[in-house]
């Protein structure tokens, strides 16, 4: 096999099924604002939506705001490319994946079906499902995205990572199970999400009730602690990895 193709395959594989090191140290690309703008234009067309406004000087890595202006829903995507990169969305595919997630929120207008006791959770699961299905359909590698959502703890606004990951994987499997030439409608993906929701909602609600107190305080205790790996002994694997990475960069 041609080396280039083989390297490409490895890269693709790593992106599809990523671990901590793949996410934060491998396959990093510079994602320019122009690229994000182009992708937003493309996804607007794909979802059949008006192009949202974009603000690149936001405080949060990526979020969407839906404003009701005189009865018309106007979406605004707030994005901070630097913070996005720090969170692990550090290559083009990962950024497109996160944009797909935000577009799913716009597509649903934040509507929920009321089966999950926490409406925000339901909305997030919807967006994860939709994003994962769309990414798979568009041939965008979702390894980093899945790792990052699957790693999260439950908060009042976001469900436990395991459920998000399960949701994303179900969506991916659904798209992969379709014949390659079949047309994929967003409505069909929604139906699949409903199936996922109805069959998993009992679990999700039980988790929510069992960990209610913990979830309520999840954000309070979330303090950013920077770990200085250099203080650890040389046998520490992460330290070794960082040093090796630095050497390679030099």
């Amino acid at each position: 096999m041609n080396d280039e193709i083989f390297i490409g395959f490895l890269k693709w594989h790593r992106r599809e099924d990523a671990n901590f090191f793949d996410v934060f140290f491998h396959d990093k690309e510079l994602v320019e604002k122009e690229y994000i703008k182009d992708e937003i234009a493309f996804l607007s067309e794909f979802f059949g939506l008006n192009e949202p406004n974009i603000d690149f000087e936001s405080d949060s890595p990526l979020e969407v705001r839906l404003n009701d202006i005189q009865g018309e829903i106007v979406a605004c995507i707030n994005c901070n490319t630097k913070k996005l990169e720090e969170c692990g969305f550090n290559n083009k595919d990962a950024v497109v994946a996160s944009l797909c997630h935000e577009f799913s929120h716009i597509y649903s207008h934040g509507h929920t079906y009321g089966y999950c006791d926490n409406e925000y959770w339901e909305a997030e699961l919807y967006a994860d499902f939709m994003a994962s299905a769309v990414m798979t359909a568009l041939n965008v590698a979702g390894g980093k995205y899945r790792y990052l959502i699957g790693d999260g703890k439950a908060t009042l606004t976001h469900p436990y990572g395991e459920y998000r990951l399960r949701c994303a994987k179900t969506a991916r499997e659904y798209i992969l199970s379709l014949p390659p030439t079949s047309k994929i409608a967003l409505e069909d993906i929604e139906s699949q999400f409903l199936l996922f929701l109805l069959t998993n909602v009992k679990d999700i609600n039980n988790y929510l009730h069992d960990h209610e107190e913990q979830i309520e305080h999840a954000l309070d205790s979330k303090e950013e602690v920077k770990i200085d790996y250099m203080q650890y002994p040389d046998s520490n694997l992460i330290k070794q990895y960082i040093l090796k990475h630095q050497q390679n960069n030099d």
Partner: protein
Amino acid sequence: MIKNFELSKPTTSLVSHEICGTIHVVGADSHNIEMMSNVVSKMDSTKTMFPYSVKDDDGQSVGLQNGFFVYVKNILTQEVYVAKAYCDEEVTQADLAKFIVSIELDLKRKLAYNIRCLAVNSPELCFELLSSGDNVKEILARPFGKAAGPSIFGVIRSAFQSREKQNDFVQISEQVLGKDASRHDFIDNFVDLCNAIYNKEGKPDQLKMADKIVDRLLNEICNHNEAKMVNFVREHSQDRTFFKNFVYECLDPEQLSSKAQVTIYVRRKSKEETISKNLGHYRFFTEKGGVQKPLKFGRELSNVYMLMYLIDHVKEPERKQPIDLKRNVEEFKKLYRDLFKDFSNDDHIKDIVSEYFHRKDKYGNLRSGRKSEYIDAIRKTMQEQFEEYNESFLPYIMTGNSHLHVPVDKIVFEEDAKEALLSYNFV
């Protein structure tokens, strides 16, 4: 995939309530039925309206080849419905999930409507029902999700304190709006309005004021004079936006347009007239019964915006959707230049267009654009002027989600401006 879903009254009256919730699956093999039973068993029955189960059926009783049907009942009225879904190919588990969610959403909407009507027609009974300990209360207490519609069950306070008021309301709303769907919408909005007023508990002055507002609104609705209503609300209400939206929502501009008598004229400024800061090289006039009045909106861009809608309405009278400025930026710029003869540079117009969508506050945070300000300026001017004519202004204004409704013959571009204005094409 589900092609058609309907919830209707069953043709036979011999439906036993015990079979409600049993989903009859038509056109699936035994393995598929087993999978569907598995789906249903995994569902959280405390979150659904019925404990569902799945059963194989040949579909002959309802004329189905592929699909589902189930008998369900409205827990409030005890009415039984049959929900049917037609599929063009073999049914899947995802179809089943969609079918169940569709049934529940439809039933929830029906339930919400029943409760609103009950709140209007018989608040005592409604209170009784909602405070009772039976399963109705339990089901109503469940989160319904935004897909089922706006908030539903916060309405029941003392929305109408006396029987006379309730009767008046029902009678008047029927007289004014008939018994069709628009009346239902009206009732929905009205009860929410009353709820918003009466929620201000413990402040007697406000309650007194709320009473006055309800009385006055009832009278004004009877006279169908929304201009006065809006004025009254503007003067007295504590929550202007809510009232304004309420009034706009419950009156249908399309219906009102058939009674429109005011004509809007657009012409170029004459040589004697000076160039106006806000109007540039064009002038707007309104005319009714030989009386002409100049029309001038408070904001520069409102004039461009209005002209854009007028042109588009004349060219495409059937269009109901508002104009998407993002897709018409170039035409907008051209029109702006035509109005103000501003050929200096592009930056000024670029800023205007970008501010239309969003702008930054003093802290640098992104906030919504000036679109609503432009529309508000148009609405305010129109309202004031049309009040003098004693005419409804609603068909003459656009909103965030609707175009103008005025008949096209009530818009006149005078000869000197006609050709230039009609050369614009908005998509």
